[in-house]
């Protein structure tokens, strides 16, 4: 059974524009141009229980709008959305008591009071029985390692610590679904890794369905096996991360550092080298660090074959085979789709 089901969701916003020019301010007071922006255009997808889905797209693509619709904050103009058999915006209170939401850029904790007071308040808001609450609290506090800061007011916490508290606050009532809107924004490497580890654990242990929007592709790579890419309000890709990579970055790159000067080789004016490597898609010389980049498609030609050819023809010092970085893949994908 599908836990989350979106069908043809549309949402438009109207933005008002002021006329330009010297009298624009004055004219703008009386006439203004209305511009309709399609934030979401026929978005449909299904997510089943326990999935960990990455939701990516450039700024302004409609990620947050989707999350807001799914969490019952916004009402779509058109389309159906069924989450755990409820329509979020129609049965808001019943719906939100079963989900958790974390917005990386906004805080849900009470700014001036100690963290534990916020948690106690949430206990009453979500009507969590005391026994369940204390057990869950110890569990979360231990795994997020926040026992030392429970008595500190939220405003005195660093961003990383605050984010851990936010996550704990969102999971106190054992939600079935967790929406994370850029949870790792602005976090340092250690906090990021800890957070990822925790989310992964929570997903596996308690089967919490998670939808994660982020700009950090490492998050996606570490956590999600399914990604959805959205751009201009349309769903562009929905599937496995591995397939996305195969489709948009099929090539591997061999970075070969040479022991002799690269300039001594026979190089033509386009900085490409004229010698034969069977199966190479593209070859580029980088004179500054004395290396050679050779791209090949692993589904067509085996890596050992490529390396062997290079080793026979060139004085190799070091050799590295790289996968294209996921950031670059996404960037080229955005570019290709004119986002």
């Amino acid at each position, binding site marked *: 059974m599908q836990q989350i089901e979106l069908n043809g969701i549309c949402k438009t916003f109207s933005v008002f524009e002021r006329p330009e020019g010297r009298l624009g301010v004055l004219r703008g007071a009386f006439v203004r141009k209305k511009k309709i922006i399609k934030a979401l255009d026929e978005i449909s997808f299904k997510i089943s229980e326990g999935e960990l889905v990455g939701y990516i797209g450039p700024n302004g693509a409609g990620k947050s709008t989707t999350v*807001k619709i799914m*969490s019952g*904050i916004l009402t779509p103009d058109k389309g159906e959305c069924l989450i755990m058999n409820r329509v979020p915006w129609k049965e808001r209170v019943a719906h*939100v008591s079963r*989900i958790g939401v974390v917005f990386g850029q906004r805080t849900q904790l009470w700014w001036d*009071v100690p963290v534990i*007071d916020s948690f106690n*308040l949430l206990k*009453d808001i979500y009507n969590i029985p005391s026994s369940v609450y204390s057990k869950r609290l110890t569990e979360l506090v231990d795994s997020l390692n926040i026992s030392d800061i429970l008595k500190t007011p939220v405003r005195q916490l660093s961003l990383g610590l605050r984010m851990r508290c936010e996550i704990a606050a969102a999971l106190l009532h054992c939600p079935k679904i967790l929406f994370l809107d850029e949870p790792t924004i602005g976090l340092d490497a250690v906090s990021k890794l800890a957070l990822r580890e925790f989310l992964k654990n929570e997903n596996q242990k308690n089967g919490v369905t998670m939808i994660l929007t982020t700009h950090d592709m490492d998050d996606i790579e570490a956590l999600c096996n399914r990604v959805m890419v959205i751009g201009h309000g349309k769903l562009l890709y929905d599937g496995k991360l591995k397939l996305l990579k195969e489709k948009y970055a099929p090539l591997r790159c061999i970075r070969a550092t040479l022991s002799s000067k690269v300039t001594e080789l026979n190089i033509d004016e386009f900085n490409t080298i004229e010698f034969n490597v069977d199966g190479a898609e593209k070859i580029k010389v980088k004179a500054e660090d004395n290396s050679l980049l050779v791209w090949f498609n692993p589904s067509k030609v085996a890596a050992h074959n490529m390396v062997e050819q290079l080793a026979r023809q060139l004085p190799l010092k070091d050799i590295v085979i790289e996968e294209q970085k996921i950031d670059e893949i996404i960037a080229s994908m955005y570019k290709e789709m004119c986002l």
Partner: protein
Amino acid sequence: MKNFFTTIKACYSLFKIKTAEGFQYRMAGLAGASTGIFWGLIEIIVYTIFYKYAENKEAGVMAGLSLRQAISYVWLTQVLFLMQPMSIDGEILSKINNGDVGIEMCRPLDLCSHWFARTAASRLTPLFWRGSITLLFAVIIPDIFRLGPPASLASFFCMLISVFTAFFLCTTFGMWFAQYA
């Protein structure tokens, strides 16, 4: 019915946490109290002059209040002054301005009662600080300026009830008024 009690409990909890938060601002309370005391004293002096030196010395009494009662009235207005600021909780207003208000919808709470509890709490603590300091001052200053005792025990309790209900009324009115803020 169960739902109702859950809401009440949550709102009470919210009220508690906001009150605790507000109690941190003691200095603001002290500053407010000194303003209130100063203003009260001016009013009392003006009333005293009018009552003592007016041509028709009976005018004030004819209006229904003796000087003593007028002075008590002045102190009571100063003590309860903060019951009616024409706004809601500043935190809610700033959330509306910067868009965080959407997140409030992620709580399984009815927005109206939720905000009511917060607004009530956010005006109770300044009221408490400013009011109690002013009240203390009003009962310890020299007799001629002092707040008079309640007329009777019964009327004192009636006053407490009316202050209590007025607090709810003022909060409601503030929330209604805030939509024009």
